[in-house]
């Protein structure tokens, strides 16, 4: 077991190193940080530009290998360098990580829980009204890109606010900048800001999980062991809840790992549309401003997140499934 864990962690680290290398190298090849300073009026002298680029550690005049090694060395000591705006990446990182995590964790937890319940209900009432409604809902949600969903939610909320005559949903930022209350009021204010972005992340998850859970549940409905349970004298409903559910939930843990990649992709849209200063919106700005150091930091963050969710999924499967536990 220990042996296994060590190998697993090692693999994890290799993958992170690989992903971050890929991120740094690709962005260094694709971005032209010099362009940020060229064409300014009055023109910035070449030597100043070079000095600025050297300060960032991204001067293309130096060979890429050298730049990468410096960057990697610094990252190992916990220093992600400087942004194009000459802020410390670490500072941005520590501020933005929590903004994104709040959104992602809440969104994925709500998405998976609601999705699983919906999937189970759909399967049990196969072809019933609930099932059909859930199917249409998830198909529509899965066919709507996150950005469109976020925009529609935003417009819908604005429309609703107008009708209600008060601002119930806030559509910009994490909390009102001019908000003065504290305690309970601040919490409510934050919640009002949180609802829409979380929803735009969770809805996709609900659609995703409900489809898969429904299929897994239907598979279990046809299984031999459920028939055995009924042959023992359980009614079909009892056998479903006592025997079917637990087995049908197993595959979901694996899907959890997959879906996290999807969530990480969704975050940039949600954050930028709702004006949250998280990792996702940072990524967009960083790409637009040729900011190699910031982009690399975001990539390290998301690879760690995806790998971590994979690890969690494995642990969950091992906890739930005795066939795996006895490894």
């Amino acid at each position: 077991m220990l042996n296994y864990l060590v190998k697993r962690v090692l693999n994890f680290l290799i993958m992170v190193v690989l992903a971050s290398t890929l991120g740094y190298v690709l962005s260094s090849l694709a971005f032209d940080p010099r362009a940020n300073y060229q064409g300014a009026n009055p023109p910035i002298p070449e030597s100043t530009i070079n000095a600025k680029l050297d300060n960032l550690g991204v001067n293309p005049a130096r060979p890429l290998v050298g730049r990468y090694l410096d960057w990697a060395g610094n990252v190992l000591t916990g220093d992600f360098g400087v942004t194009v705006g000459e802020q410390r990446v670490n500072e941005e990182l520590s501020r933005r990580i929590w903004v994104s995590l709040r959104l992602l964790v809440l969104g994925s937890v709500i998405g998976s829980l609601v999705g699983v319940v919906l999937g189970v209900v759909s399967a049990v009432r196969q072809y019933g009204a609930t099932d059909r409604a859930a199917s249409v809902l998830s198909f529509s949600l899965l066919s709507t890109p996150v950005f469109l969903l976020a925009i529609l939610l935003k417009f819908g909320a604005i429309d609703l606010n107008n009708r209600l005559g008060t601002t119930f949903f806030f559509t910009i930022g994490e909390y009102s900048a001019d908000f003065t209350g504290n305690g309970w009021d601040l919490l409510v204010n934050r919640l009002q800001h949180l609802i829409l972005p979380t929803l735009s992340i969770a809805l996709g998850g609900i659609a995703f999980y409900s489809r898969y859970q429904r299929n897994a549940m239907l598979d279990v409905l046809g299984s031999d062991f459920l028939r055995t349970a009924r042959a023992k004298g359980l009614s079909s409903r009892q056998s479903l809840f006592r025997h079917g559910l637990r087995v049908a939930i197993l595959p979901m843990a694996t899907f959890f790992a997959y879906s996290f990649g999807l969530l990480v992709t969704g975050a940039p849209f949600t954050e930028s549309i709702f004006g949250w200063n998280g990792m996702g919106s940072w990524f967009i700005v960083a790409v637009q401003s040729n900011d190699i150091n910031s982009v690399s930091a975001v990539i390290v963050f998301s690879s760690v997140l995806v790998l971590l969710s994979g690890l969690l999924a494995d642990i969950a499967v091992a906890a739930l499934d005795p066939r795996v536990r006895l490894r």
Partner: protein
Amino acid sequence: MTLSVASNLIEIRNLTVTFPSEAGIVRAVRDVSLDIRAGEVLGIVGESGSGKSVMSLSMIGLLAESATVTGSISYDGVNLLSLGDNAMSKYRGKDIAMVFQDPLSALNPVHTIGRQISEALHIHNDISKEAALARAIELLEIVGIPRPAERAQSYPHEFSGGMRQRVMIALAIANQPKVILADEPTTALDVTVQAQILDVLKTARDMTGAAVVLVTHDLGVVAGLADRVAIMYAGKVVEIGNVDEVYASPAMPYTIGLLRSIPRVDAVGSSRLTSIEGTPPSPVALPPGCAFAPRCPAAAPQCDAEIPVLAAVSPTRLTACVRQQEIQGLQTSGRLFRDGPSHVAAPVSGNAVALEIRNLKKTFPLMKGSVLRRRVGSVFAVDGVDLTLREGRSLALVGESGCGKTTTLLEILNMVAPETGTITVLGRNVSELSKKQRLEMRKDLQIVFQDPFASLDPRLPIGDAIAEPLDNFGMPKSEQDQRVMELLELVGLQRDHASRYPAEFSGGQRQRIAIARALALNPKVLALDEPVSALDVSVRAGVLNLLAELQEKLNLSYLFVSHDLAVVQHVADDIAVMYLGGIVESGPVEEVFARPQHPYTQALLSAVPIPDPVVERVRKRVILQGELPSPANPPSGCRFHTRCQIRASLPAEVAARCVSDRPELDSRHASRVACHAPLN
């Protein structure tokens, strides 16, 4: 019409079950009336698709929701078919219990065995958790699970197939039911395990006094156990009666053919098998009258006109045949079924050696972990095998699943240097072949696989499949067609079948196609990996007869892998018995069957059920203890010593050698045996 006896436990009347399907309405059970008497063992025998399972599931109310059921099933004055799911579940497990075919998937993988049995007790009784668990452990003990208290804490995947089937029986008897329905309870198991399970089933019946409905496709399995037997064909019971009577003087042509088409392990000398032409009808397109008419040698116009009903031929037997009166006469005059060729063995000595294996070994790494796999040991799949196949003869390699038969076969067919040992094909050591020579050699050694549904590419017309080897060895397209036609005729198919896809053929026909493909390059040696075990009983004989004909016509040598000793008795000249990676006994078939030297051979032979109730009841059986040990961790000395039935009665000194020294294959009489204390 049914024979009425006072104590009917279950009365089935005019039961008809249909399912909707894309191809039309599937008529799975058609107008069946049947009684189950208290305490009796009723065997229900039929080929796959004949409606056995559907009938037993309708008795316990577990048919698919799409099923349409008419008729009645009365139990204790209640028509079970009129009950809803909740009302019916009061009977399930309490009055009527069921054991299913596939023990591997029938238990919930995420709950312990103990918990699953206790649950069965809790459902129908108001007992405490502790009492239920204690009773569960008792039940495990009854069905022969060693260390039951400990094993109750295990999960199903930690049990072998045989052990899980024992658990299923424990579940079935937990609430002292009145009827136990067992649907092919041993079909997925090896013969020695089958013998154990049938024994447990007997114990279960003696303990509960329940009636047992034993559903199977194997006429041998019911012979020794059943009081009465019902034969099903295409959704109907076509013959039912006292088991001795049905076996001794079958009256319905299908039963007659079936009984004559199955090889018997106790047959003496070369036996002849009857093959029933054709295949069972599709349940969506049944013939208008008697469903057996298209295959029946006695069929007459009136057979198509009416559906025969069960009628009494004796006080204890009913038969459904329009020409009932005439059948007896036809049978005695030999006009009913024609027997196939009897197998003629090629001379033993003087023949060149076609295939020789010496001390073949093959180990697989034992891997663990799903993400990062690592080697934790070795599986000794084949561990010192010697075989000699002479030209024109058939050598059978027999043994239970997991003993290494298939691995041996694949090692031979791979034609690369083995880990240890030598493989000589037609006088040439395969280790010394160049790549080109190896390809050339493949022409001489071909294979027919077990499952004809897996051995043909579903996307390739069968003509192309048969032509593939020809094409591969550069035969011009124009000649290929000619050869394909020849081959199709050789195996008894029609020329115009060439452009059809495998899906359009039945199992037996597909096996013929696979044989044609294997013969395309005129091989000298044919490896047959369980060639008939996936086929329906009534079509097996046809394929076996074909193989016998081909061998004679083309002077083929067969390496015949099988677990079915009755089939081996019928087709093979020589036999090699394998146990846990090694050959324990080999020699001429008659010799080995008549005087088995090795205790394992003896046990194996005695485990094969014989389709004859009289023989079956008086026969003394050796029932092996325990399970096949894991080839990853084989026992020391004689591999068989953990289960050997005679070791306990041996002198201490010999018994000790069994544990310490591995016996070598030694010549004794006409056969060779690896045992420190051979039997005869």
